[in-house]
């Protein structure tokens, strides 16, 4: 069996190459190996960054015809573990029920294994198609040689090669051993996407039966013989350290095995570890810790002071001018810090034995977890073995891997004993890498005809982390001379990747402000946006304007695609109905991860101010849809996730620490507030698939806020919505 190694493989182009070898049992093994130069560089310099996708996948076909695929990146609900093998099965012409999927451990042979940035499907689509088609071509060749007929006379169907002229057929399993001896063809024909049979259908998740019967899948479910249970308590003030702790007292509590301070480990936030005979005993003992913290300078930080600092930026900034004669419109928008609040709290399991750290990690980026352990504990990468478990939600949280180093540091002290570290929910809220807060100070000018003649934005966020405004995206690219400035708050609040980084807050602000401008201009908001889209330089050109970027899609923004999804959403949602006061429709658009999404929301707001979301209508152009079931679920879930955050959630910082400690003060959307109707429409396309785990999120909140304005005349400029008074008379 041939396993490519990054040490011998140079950085290759996107086509990559195919490796092949025989399985011990006489099967055929085909792997694709490819790396993206940019992705590698990004991952090297920023371990927790949203890397472009750079995996490595293997197909094996056993003599009994079973096809096995190693899913190289983590499953967290986005459906990659089902969608990726579907791509291979399609090109391979193998029945779906013959495919077995196995989750890959961290292994250099698979390249970079990062499940971030909605990259799993777009990153794997081409290489996996090629892997499937290559295997199919070799099986055909094996059959042709066996029968002594030209390969061109053979076809494939349902996991078998057929020679119709003679009525012969051989199953893939029967051909695997012979195929493994053949040279790998350099170029193979891929299917015409119009002929796809499996892709685009609804395929339920491969782990569904295990989930509905409660089998151990998640990191928190890992159980090893003789395992002990740990809790780890860090200073609630960001940057604080342990001055002293009553560890000797806590060690004597019933069921407690050990308690100790961890400090001075490279990359580890200092804290106190408690190890006990069960999670419950570890948690209750952790609550009995009396710790003197050295809080450090971080204690002076607070959300109120940050708001003042942001205001000062907004006022100090002279801003770009609005032309004489135009009506100036100014508005300030603010969104708060958000926690990820994955339902499975952060956790990790490790065993240190014979110099090897073996780990079971619910992580989106296993290599980053491994690196933190090698760097923190001075272990070689080959001595840190990482198994990847299912993730009880990711949303970007598990791109950072503090839990890996924490449990490894504890396991190293308890050599020979397996340790499971579980974060108490309170610690999970206190030590997140939050979605950054942000402020937009907009200034626009409308001429007497209601045309936007100026559009400027002064943006402020916490320093570090993603989510910056770069300018150049829609709607700024529709208005010549537009200026976007970006300012940073000083501070040490840890921020990180949160589903649809940047767009998750900035699209809310910009799409709300565009709605304000439409109303100020006395125009229908959809017509107004269509006018802006038509003003993007190069709009109307088939390939879209050169260099124009929208959202963080990274690709060229094609206004015509945006226009098409918006028009279709308006039609599907019955846009433009005359509605009584208290009912309203609103919409918003985004170009995120290269997908184009328009969302129309129908809401009602009672006179007492009670908001009900009646219906969401989404139209999505995400290229070819691989698995219609998970694609639809991702858009439904992403929209509701965006609404959940915008409606209810905020993390406020008080005296350098997060003020919210559990779900009772950081509520998630519950089923009784979920809209009764959620409609997701995909534009039929055979273009390569874009990302889809995130793009549904950004437009949902502004669509709701714009609908609230239509219903009540109240403009939401500060989130969450629940903090605003929606009463009307």
């Amino acid at each position, binding site marked *: 069996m041939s396993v490519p190694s990054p040490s011998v493989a140079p950085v290759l182009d996107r086509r990559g190459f195919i490796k092949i070898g025989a399985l011990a049992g006489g099967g055929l093994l085909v792997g694709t190996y490819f790396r993206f130069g940019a992705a590698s560089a990004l991952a090297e310099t920023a371990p927790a960054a949203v890397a472009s996708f750079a995996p490595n996948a293997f197909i094996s076909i056993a003599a009994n015809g079973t096809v096995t695929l190693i899913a190289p990146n983590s499953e967290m609900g986005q459906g990659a573990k089902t969608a990726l093998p579907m791509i291979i099965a399609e090109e391979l012409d193998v029945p779906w029920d013959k495919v077995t999927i196995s989750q890959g451990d961290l292994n250099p042979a698979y390249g970079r294994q990062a499940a971030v940035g909605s990259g799993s499907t777009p990153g794997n689509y081409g290489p996996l198609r090629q892997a499937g088609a290559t295997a199919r071509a070799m099986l055909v060749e094996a059959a042709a040689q066996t029968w002594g007929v030209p390969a061109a006379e053979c076809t494939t169907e349902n996991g078998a090669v057929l020679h119709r002229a003679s009525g012969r057929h051989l199953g893939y399993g029967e051909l695997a051993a012979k195929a493994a001896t053949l040279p790998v063809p350099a170029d193979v024909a891929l299917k015409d996407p119009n002929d796809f049979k499996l892709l685009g259908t609804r395929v339920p*998740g491969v782990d569904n*039966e295990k989930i509905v*019967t409660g089998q151990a899948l998640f990191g928190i479910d890992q159980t090893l013989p003789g395992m002990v249970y740990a809790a780890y308590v860090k200073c609630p003030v960001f940057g604080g350290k342990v001055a002293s702790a009553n560890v000797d007292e806590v060690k004597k509590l019933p069921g407690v095995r050990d308690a100790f301070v961890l400090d001075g480990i490279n990359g580890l936030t200092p804290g106190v570890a408690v190890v006990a005979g069960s999670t*419950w005993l570890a948690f209750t003992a952790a609550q009995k810790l009396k710790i003197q913290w050295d809080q450090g300078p971080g204690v002076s930080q607070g959300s109120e002071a940050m708001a003042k600092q942001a205001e000062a930026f907004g006022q100090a900034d002279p801003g770009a001018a609005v032309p004489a004669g135009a009506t100036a419109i100014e508005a300030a928008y603010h969104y708060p810090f958000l926690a990820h609040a994955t*339902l499975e709290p952060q956790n990790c399991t490790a065993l240190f034995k014979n110099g090897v750290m073996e780990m079971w990690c619910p992580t989106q980026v296993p290599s980053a977890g491994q690196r933190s352990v090698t760097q923190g504990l001075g272990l070689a990468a080959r001595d840190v073995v990482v198994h990847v478990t299912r993730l009880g939600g*990711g949303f970007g949280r598990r791109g950072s891997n503090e839990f890996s180093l924490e449990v490894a540091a504890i396991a190293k002290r308890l050599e020979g004993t397996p340790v499971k570290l579980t974060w108490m929910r309170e610690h999970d809220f206190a030590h997140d890498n939050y979605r950054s807060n942000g402020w937009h100070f907009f200034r626009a000018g409308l001429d007497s005809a209601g045309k936007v003649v100026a559009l400027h934005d002064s943006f402020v966020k916490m320093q570090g982390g993603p989510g910056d405004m770069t300018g150049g995206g829609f709607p700024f690219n529709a208005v010549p001379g537009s200026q976007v400035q970006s300012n940073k708050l000083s501070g040490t609040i840890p921020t990180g990747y949160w589903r649809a980084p940047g767009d998750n807050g900035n699209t809310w602000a910009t799409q709300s402000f565009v709605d304000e401008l439409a109303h100020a201009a006395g125009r229908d908001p959809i017509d107004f946006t269509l006018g802006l889209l038509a003003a993007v330089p190069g709009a109307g050109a088939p390939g879209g304007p050169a260099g124009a970027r929208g959202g963080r899609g990274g690709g060229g923004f094609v206004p015509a695609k945006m226009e098409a999804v918006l028009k279709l959403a308006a039609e599907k949602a019955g846009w433009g109905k005359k509605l009584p006061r208290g009912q309203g429709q609103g919409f918003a658009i985004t170009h995120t991860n290269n997908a184009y999404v328009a969302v129309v929301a129908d809401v009602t707001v009672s006179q007492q101010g009670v908001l009900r979301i009646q219906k969401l209508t989404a139209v999505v152009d995400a290229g070819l849809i691989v698995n219609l079931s998970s694609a639809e679920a991702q858009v439904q*879930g992403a929209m509701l996730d965006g609404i959940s955050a915008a409606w209810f959630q905020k993390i406020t910082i008080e005296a350098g620490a997060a003020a919210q400690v559990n779900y009772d003060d950081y509520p998630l959307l519950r*089923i*009784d507030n979920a809209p009764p109707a959620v409609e997701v429409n995909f534009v039929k396309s055979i273009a390569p698939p874009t990302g889809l785990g995130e793009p549904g999120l950004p437009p949902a909140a502004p669509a709701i806020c714009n609908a609230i304005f239509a219903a009540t005349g109240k403009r939401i400029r500060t989130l969450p919505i629940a903090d605003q008074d929606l009463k009307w008379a």
Partner: protein
Amino acid sequence: MSSFNLNVNGAVHAVDLDDNTPLLWALRDTLGLVGTKYGCGIGECGACTVLLDGEAVKSCGLSLKKVGSAKVTTIEGLARGGKLTAVQQAWCKLDVPQCGYCQGGQILCATALLAAKPRPTDADIDSAMSGNFCRCASYTRIRQAIHAAAGQPTAAS
């Protein structure tokens, strides 16, 4: 420390644990039934839902002392003899799980609802299921799957 005879999924298990130990942790760490999940520990999220004599309850706030001799059903014990219940089948077929972490609790809660109200309305579903968070917000399909398990045509998607 006390001895308890816990009746879980049709079998009696003798355990020696502190009286205040929540059922959640006895199930997960002592009996190895990890299908019951920890989410918040304060009764907010519903990830720890089990059936207690057929009623959906949150096991993170239920001490062993209070469990007594009641019959506990966890998600592992719902399918008897390897046959999935109608609720479990509907969950698989309609592809409800996203990350899946909340779904054991959702399924048990839906099972208790359908036992009490075999033909629930959307309003019945919302009121019975609103104690169970889904962080992935799979609510649209949860409603559809409950209707499907009840043998009712699904409401508007």
